């Protein structure tokens, strides 16, 4: 085994049945250089304090469960290593801007409701039967949306977004990136339906272009870019509506 060291992990605890407001709790954690923050928390849960609650599953930055604030920045705990946080202490809190259900567990409901609201599925431009086989889509066409389809719904960008912090109704970076993912897919014809969400007050125009969302994204989705592209689309949409009686977008 690699050599071990010690680090202090401070966790902001909140147990609704016990505490009226969050309190800090400190743990001394022995770790090796290959251990993630998640593994540090697992050690606490397994051996020191079984009452600490947090979500995790895949351990490899793809399931999106283990987002939390680590030293005031949103991170996936499985992808953040204790060796990089020496000498400590490490301060861990639930993701910012989201209601805390307990300890490091935040509510995901709002995010999922927003996702459900943007029609996150192909609305076919041209219907096609299974017998006709797959739609043709060139690598270049795929590249136009693939990056936005890589969102793992970890919500780090929501914890980073100052606008979402002020207005929880703001559709927010992750969901707007997914909306753009479908709009940019060559198979899809649902852009007009989705542009109503983009154009709404809680849509792209709430974004104040801080760009922190893209900085914290663990999958390089670059939601800020998706939002920005939709501002352009939304502006075009507005302009065309002035010109044509029914409102036509390209």
């Amino acid at each position, binding site marked *: *085994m*690699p050599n071990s060291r010690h680090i202090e992990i401070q966790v902001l605890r909140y*147990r*609704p*049945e*016990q505490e009226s407001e969050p309190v800090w709790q400190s743990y001394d954690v022995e770790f*090796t250089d*290959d251990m993630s923050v998640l593994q540090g928390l697992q050690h606490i*849960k*397994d*051996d020191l*304090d*079984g*009452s600490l*609650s*947090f*979500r*995790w*599953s*895949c*351990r*490899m*930055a*793809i*399931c*999106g*469960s283990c987002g939390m604030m680590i030293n005031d920045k949103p991170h996936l705990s499985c*992808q953040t290593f204790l060796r990089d946080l020496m000498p400590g202490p490490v301060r861990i809190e639930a993701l910012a801007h989201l209601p805390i*259900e*307990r*300890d490091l*567990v935040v509510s*995901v409901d709002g995010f*999922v409701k927003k996702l*459900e609201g943007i029609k*996150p*599925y*192909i609305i*076919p431009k041209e219907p*096609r039967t*299974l017998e006709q*086989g*797959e*739609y*043709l*889509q*060139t*690598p270049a*066409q*795929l590249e136009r949306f*693939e990056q936005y*389809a*890589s969102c*793992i*719904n970890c919500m780090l960008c929501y914890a980073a977004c100052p606008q979402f912090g002020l207005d929880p109704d703001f559709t927010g970076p992750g969901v707007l990136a*997914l909306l753009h993912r*479908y709009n940019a*897919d060559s*198979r*899809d014809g649902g852009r007009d339906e989705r542009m109503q969400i983009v154009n709404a007050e809680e849509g792209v125009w709430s974004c104040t272009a801080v760009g922190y969302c893209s900085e914290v994204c663990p999958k390089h989705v670059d939601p800020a870019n998706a939002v920005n592209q939709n501002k352009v689309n939304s502006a075009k949409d507005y302009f065309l509506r002035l010109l044509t009686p029914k409102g036509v977008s390209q």
Partner: protein
Amino acid sequence: MEIFRADVAIVGAGGAGLRAAIAVAESDPTLSIALISKVYPMRSHTVAAEGGAAAVTQAHDSLAAHFHDTVAGGDWLCEQDVVEFFVGQAHREMVQMEHWGCPWSRTDDGHANVRAFGGMKIERTWFAADKTGFHMLHTLFQTSIKAPSIRRFDEHFCADLIVDEGRVQGVVAIEIATGQFRLIQAKSVIIATGGAGRVFRENTNGGIVTGDGMALAYRHGVPLRDMEFVQYHPTCMPGTGLLFTEACRGEGGFLLNKDGYRYLQDYGLGPAEPTPRNKAMELGPRDRLSQAYWHEKQKGRTIPGPHGEVVHLDLRHLGEKKLRERLPQIYELAVEYLGVDPAHEPIPVLPAVHYTMGGITANAKTESSLPGLYSVGECSSVGIHGANRLGSNSLTELLVFGKVAGVQAADYAKRTAHGNDRTIASLAKDAQRRAESVVSRPSGGERIATLRREMAKSMEDGCGIYRTAATMQATCETLAELKHRYRNVQLDDKSKAWNTEWLLAIELGYLLDVAQAMAHSALNRRESRGSHQRLDGFEARDDANYLAHSLACYRGADAPRIEYGPVRITSSPPGTRAYGAAGEEADRKAKEQEVAYAK
């Protein structure tokens, strides 16, 4: 207790559960569907599948070839009629996923691309870079949002099945956020809870892969089939077990020992050639590759590392550009988790537990012996994997049999009425009392993590890549002792909201039951076949006595009873399982034999 009445309840919302839910909704939109998962659907472990999904696609490929690869890959323990159905439906399901928006990687002319995979004679694995499971899961989840008849119960933990009048009648679930119990009454229930890799120490699986559905069906009298067959994936990260996809080798990666030698050529997989050749060398099946690692380790030709002996997965010759395009996630995992740049250094790897070939006994319609109960995906044994699964058959399985399960469970629900409400409510209260007793037990001093570690270590020691009666017997005894000690588990957390320690305790109970089914099935199989390899006088396959499915039957506190059932052979009589140059010769012979058998 709050009651929700559904026509069909689905436990598990990974790839299989979501595909099943969509199939129910499409087959009859008036049926109400309860989709229950202990996590949000997009967290399900399908998300971690990397390499791809198999379906015959190219003109020079054939269903017969996919069938033969699968049956031989499974060492002839497959249900051949089910495999025939499976290979026939696979392509249609890939196209369906494409229509639903799955971002499949493409050829230059815009068609879905296919890649080579272990044990597959012709390239037929559809892929979305090296995040195929992730993209399939999100595509299915987002597509399921279209269906108003799907009512999701996200973050609801399944505590028990309700069985009354000889049929399944629903499930009891805990809403994790509040600790409240819900009765979800249903006419049919589909179990789609995934595998049980967490019974082993070093594994590729997420923390949620704890065999919940397997254990529940098993406790209610449905046998678990072929549980001794546990797949070790040959290329995993030392220490954590995280997966480096087989696609690394499909794209041309090499496996090297400490001398930089492609050792697989010493294990009947050669000749070693500079470019990948299907069903040879690094593209051999997973069981053979993991076994070869074990032998190299015995010979002292592996490389010592901080987490045990490793070999090298060498991708350097593929170049950074191809690695970034085809294996972007692997690239990042190696850099971030190991500090290894795979374009310039080989990746240290070792085998880790990856997949449970066996599961809840199901027929080709995904039906179990308990009326109204269906199962699909890794938790199920529908019979296509036999003694060793070929990579990229399991993602396809989710789709093909997810659809079947949905259609079948919908049909059953339409023919069936809800049962006796009062009895069902009373059974649900009993289930609640049992689940709550885990928290309120008087102090017994046992920690969950201690028992879990002892179980996982014992499974690795006794039921690893190679097995003997003595080691398996020792594991069986340890598991019996652990089950006894489990009654003394003590929790730090007595609260209701988000009491994950409580859920871990219930999961440990599921894991122990599944582990017992595995260990006893293994001990009883006195032969070597596929992933079940013995060193104690049973080194050969024994078709006379063991061309049979094991069936582990639950007996409460006692060890399971192991029975055997027949294997359905349609066109491929058991033959020699050979790869590399020998494999090509064997394929020729098998074809002649098949012709003779057909006559």
